[in-house]
């Protein structure tokens, strides 16, 4: 069973539109973090933003923000004023305790976003 699910394999938007990418996850841990990464067409993976489980406030970083619904175990990445350069594959990742000394990161399958000019 998938632990991190991104139901939208692809998405598109027009330049300037707000884009929302969805992610749901399964965990029994109280403390965990959800990360969002973008993989460029070159293959480079870039960190965007993260949400700690204990923080009820939705995190923001530049044009990126998240909508965190902890009770539903879901989190959405919101990109404001999308640009063609935002095109790429967006990954949601869950970091949870692996054992007493380490955390393990589990990635979703990604959502490929295409922003049209």
């Amino acid at each position, binding site marked *: 069973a998938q632990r991190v699910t991104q139901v939208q394999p692809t998405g598109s938007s027009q330049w300037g539109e707000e884009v929302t990418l969805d992610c749901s996850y399964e965990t029994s841990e109280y403390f965990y973090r959800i*990360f969002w990464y973008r993989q460029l067409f070159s293959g480079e993976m870039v960190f965007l933003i993260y949400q700690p489980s204990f923080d009820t406030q939705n995190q923001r970083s530049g044009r990126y923000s998240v909508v965190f619904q902890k009770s539903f175990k879901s989190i959405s990445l919101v990109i404001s004023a999308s640009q063609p350069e935002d095109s790429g594959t967006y990954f949601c990742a869950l970091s949870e305790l*692996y054992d007493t000394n*380490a955390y393990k990161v589990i990635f979703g399958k990604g959502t490929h976003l295409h922003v049209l000019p």
Partner: protein
Amino acid sequence: ETAVFQTPNYHVTQVGNEVSFNCKQTLGHDTMYWYKQDSKKLLKIMFSYNNKQLIVNETVPRRFSPQSSDKAHLNLRIKSVEPEDSAVYLCASSTGLGDYEQYFGPGTRLTVL
């Protein structure tokens, strides 16, 4: 600006050969990781090291062995490659023990003929 370096970029080899991939980070991080990304872009953790010590070891075939000489280097050796080993191998580093954001290298694409 690249701070996690991987060599080689590409490697083509035949079934049964041994390959080695290198990874170096200049960020001063304590923890490094190896991920395998398959043709469907699914990314899976293989190993992670903290200060040269193995801390995450997922179920991977025994022919895969990580090697860490110091906290800035984490190499991956594959003895006797199989066709299913064809993938992109991504190295990453972070502060903390996997609970902070990771910085990725450009990847090594392995093709096994």
